[in-house]
């Protein structure tokens, strides 16, 4: 999804990962991602994207989800995974971004 960054789109990746983990990942991906730490999953819960006890040690995690917002902050596209194996297809996300009303 790195090509999205070049289209002037802000990508915010949200997980309960602590800051140092996010920093590691950000450096590894070298992308225009900003990794945000939702440590107590408050935002994830508010968004209704909590997967309770879904972690491999039975801890709460976020359900994999991708949300495209237009520049007014309105939801235009969203994809929720119903399986932990599923990840968003960058092609679909890029298309959703391209189809945003200008």
């Amino acid at each position: 999804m790195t090509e999205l960054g070049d289209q002037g789109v802000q990508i915010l990746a949200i997980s309960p990962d602590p800051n140092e983990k996010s920093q590691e990942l950000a450096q590894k991906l070298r992308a225009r991602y900003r990794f945000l730490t939702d440590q107590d999953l408050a935002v994830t819960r508010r968004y209704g994207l909590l997967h309770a006890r879904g972690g491999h040690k039975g801890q709460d995690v976020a359900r994999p989800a991708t949300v495209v917002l237009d520049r007014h902050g309105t939801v235009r596209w969203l994809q929720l995974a119903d399986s932990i194996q599923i990840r968003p297809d960058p092609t679909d996300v890029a298309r959703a971004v391209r189809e945003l009303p200008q």
Partner: protein
Amino acid sequence: MIRYWPALMSVLLSVAAIAGYMALLRVPAIRNHPALYLAAFAVAAIIAGAATWRAARWPNFVALGLSVALLILGGYFNFVLAKIPPASTVLRAGEPAPDFTLPDASGAPVSLASFRERTPVVLVFYRGYW
């Protein structure tokens, strides 16, 4: 040995399905269709089953046992373990996303509202790595 080629083919198919899935995890079309490896295990089980039915010998039983075990384990993982219960997300297309402020990787606060009227935003929620 040559008479066991269906058993060998069955085992190779199972191994190739696992290796292929692992090797191509970064390809969305493979990663997002885990039913592909289940289909491969099922075909492997059918081949081994037919071979066992024709000749009840140990290589055929081994191939049958392996492919059926993989089919059951893979099916259990795919249809039970990996499933996420239905969400009651508040997000609806056409409605505003609730605002939030969260720290970024360096600890600086980032608020969703700060991008309003400036740029589109893609939010990616992920499970985390710990």
